[in-house]
């Protein structure tokens, strides 16, 4: 019957059956959950962040944003690190590694000072974790000596990474906060401190909505709320950007990256691989749909490799990086005039409205036939193509060179 591709990939010197991992969060916070996830096909687990500190969680603690009828565009949480006793977590991790020796266990840890970081590093090494992830990035810790406040400070990142590395022989991965302009700075600091790898992103500080009865953010916790972490599909573009920028940075050239943020299907996964991630982590999509989503990630990615002729994931990693270039290097010699397929057009006029109100008034509207036509004023911005509700109705057409520019071969997307 159908033969599926080998999706195995090496990450930080560890051979992974596939790149799909749970990211550190409630989706991997006890033995039974992780066991179910691994049985469903996930290649590994980043266990829920453990610490010496035990948080006191609020209720409710989640909200999600919608656009029209689509829920979960983005997801907001107010959760901190694991609220289970440290010993209990260590016990469950040990059992996981024992029962699933071929799957990968990454221990996520967070300390409050060098001693704690060292202690946690040693403990998770003893339980048999394959890799350690340092959580420098939770944006809703109730203590400023922990979480994203640390991740924004390169000195602290370096210092704590050193502490962790000093107490283990395992590869150490530093998890970055996106609440920062240049992620390369703390990432390089982590590498200087001994990190073998960088993962990104943790959640983005956000307010999803304002509650109109209590005049506070969502979710409402006894009439109040806090700014806290945003994740899910909406953050994917931001995460892709951070991963690409780190992958392109010369000082991080050989550092394996783990991509996190809004991954829910094989296309998202392929995109992260193409901008340089070798490992992929997921939370929000699992919270919304369950572990089963990995089945279609595995099957879909495998079919994609077959269709494109990739023999291994390695061939895909970073394949887009050379084509993502600075704005000043973009070829600006031409404009591509869209063409409208009259047979497919249903005459909604959305292209006309958007071109008038948001672009260059380059579409004429035939009132009698209710059909658009593009005029010479078109600058080739393709807003119309972005808004047209019909697939394949507006497509890229003629390539026109600007005056005085040399005509040359142009790839039309």
């Amino acid at each position, binding site marked *: *019957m159908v033969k599926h591709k080998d999706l195995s990939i090496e990450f930080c010197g560890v051979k992974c059956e596939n790149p799909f991992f749970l990211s550190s969060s409630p989706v991997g916070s006890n033995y039974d959950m992780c066991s179910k996830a691994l049985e469903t096909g996930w290649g590994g687990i980043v266990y829920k962040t453990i610490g010496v500190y035990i948080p006191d969680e609020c209720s409710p603690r989640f909200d999600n944003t919608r656009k029209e009828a689509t829920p979960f565009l983005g997801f907001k949480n107010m959760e901190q690190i694991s609220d289970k006793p440290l010993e209990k977590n260590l016990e469950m991790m040990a059992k996981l590694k024992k029962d699933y020796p071929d799957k990968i266990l990454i221990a996520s840890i967070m300390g409050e000072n060098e001693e704690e970081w060292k202690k946690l590093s040693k403990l998770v090494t003893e339980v048999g974790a394959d890799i350690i992830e340092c959580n420098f990035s939770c944006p809703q810790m109730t203590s400023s000596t922990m979480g994203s406040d640390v991740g924004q400070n390169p000195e602290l990142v370096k210092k704590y990474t050193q502490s962790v590395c000093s107490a283990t022989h395992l590869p150490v991965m530093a998890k970055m906060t996106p609440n920062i302009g240049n992620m390369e700075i703390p990432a390089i600091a982590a590498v200087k401190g001994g990190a073998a790898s960088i993962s990104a992103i943790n959640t983005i500080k956000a307010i999803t909505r304002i509650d109109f009865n209590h005049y506070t953010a969502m979710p409402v916790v006894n009439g109040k709320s806090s700014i806290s972490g945003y994740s899910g599909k909406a953050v994917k573009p931001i995460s892709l950007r951070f991963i690409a920028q780190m992958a392109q940075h010369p000082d991080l050239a050989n550092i394996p990256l783990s991509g996190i943020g809004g991954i829910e299907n094989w296309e998202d996964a392929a995109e992260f691989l193409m901008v340089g991630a070798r490992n992929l982590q997921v939370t929000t999509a699992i919270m919304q749909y369950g572990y089963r989503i990995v089945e279609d990630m595995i099957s*879909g990615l495998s079919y994609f490799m077959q269709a494109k002729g990739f023999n291994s994931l390695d061939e895909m990693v970073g394949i887009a990086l050379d084509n993502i270039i600075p704005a000043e290097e973009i070829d600006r010699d031409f404009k591509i005039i869209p063409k409208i397929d009259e047979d497919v057009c249903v005459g909604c006029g959305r292209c006309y409205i958007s071109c008038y109100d948001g672009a260059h008034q380059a579409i004429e509207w035939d009132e009698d036939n209710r059909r658009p036509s593009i005029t010479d004023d078109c600058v080739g911005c393709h807003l119309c193509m972005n808004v047209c509700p019909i697939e394949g109705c507006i497509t890229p057409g003629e390539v026109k060179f600007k005056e005085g520019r040399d005509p040359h071969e142009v790839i039309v997307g």
Partner: protein
Amino acid sequence: MNDKKKYLTEAIKPYTPLLAMEEASRCLLCHDAPCSKGCPAGTNPAKFIRSIRFKNIKGAAETIRKANILGGVCARICPYDKLCEEACSRTGIDKPIEIGRLQRFATDFEQAIGMKILEAPEATKEKVAVIGSGPAGLAAAANLALMGYKVTIFEEKSTPGGVLTYGIVPSRLPQNIVDQEIRYVKDLGVEFKLDCKVGKDITLDELKSEGYVAFVLSIGLQQPKLINIPGINLEGVTTAIDFLAAAKPNNGNIDVSQNVIVIGGGDVAMDCATTAKLLGANKVSIVYRRTYEEMPANKDEVRYVSELGVNIIYGFTPKEIIGDNGKVVKLKAVGFKDDSLLELKADKIIFAIGQIAENSKEIADLNISIDGKNLVLANEETCETNIENIFAAGDVVNEGKTVVEAVAAGKAAADSLNKYLTSLREVQSDDTEVVAEKKGVK
């Protein structure tokens, strides 16, 4: 679109990728999805809809094809409203997910890109014969080939497919879809012997002497039912089987009369009415003895024929056919529940009141158990008959249900046949061991 073209073109439009995604997005992605429990063939809608939702259309096609060799056929003609869609949780909000159309989207995609999902291993196992190439036979043959048997289908007609090819109207099931799925079966290495009626052109004993060791009997119901009323032998009186079997293989190039009456109230009657109307009949009426509610035909089909202008008359049963010069001119019918009278002009009357099975004793084995209606007495789950190497599936057992149930039965027959031959092989190898031990070889 002219009517002939309408006859040959699928009435329901395919989804575009965007529409398929919109529909898949309506799916609630249920935990213990009732839709998947509702499919007799185990096509697992919840799983393939989830694949579409997560942009894995190839995976969706894989799920369907692995479970149902006639996935594209079933996508079009399954009575979903009584199967997977009936159980759909989304009904609690508004209306069920259009599972059939999504299935069609995935299988059309599979065909469009020439995906090859199923691959049979080398046929190293025994020779087995499937009698009849309808959905039950095709499903049995495909699954047997996938298990490594050398499979031959014997079919009395010159084109395979059974009712799919000779019955169901092209506007619901175009022939190219049937041909494509039969090609999938052929690609698995299944041989087709056409124009070969078992029991007439070749006997079961001859097949055995050719080396066939086990059989699937899937001959459907080939004899039309008629009622014994005056005028039944007049020219112009015909049966659904004969009428439809002439129309579809000829791409609708047949002579239809001006005033057509169809007797019956099932899907077959609807197909006859659609065919007659689209192929040029001036006036088409359906005469059905019970009420609208009791009519077994799919209600969408009833709506469809009504929109074509077919006149449906409820509550009347035929009493006499009046002829002139040996030809039909009029139908007389009486009320089923009262003594109302109805007279309708007609130059063609089509009986679509069901079919009956041919005698399997004459086709397969003198000793096979059949009932008074010629139905083969077989275990409906395992398809076993009283003859250990004959398994029966489809209409010939269940008296005519649906394509998907015929597919499910064909799969079950293949499994049972495999179990039977596997156990025979084990006994044989035990025997050779005993003999070997006796000879002192071991």
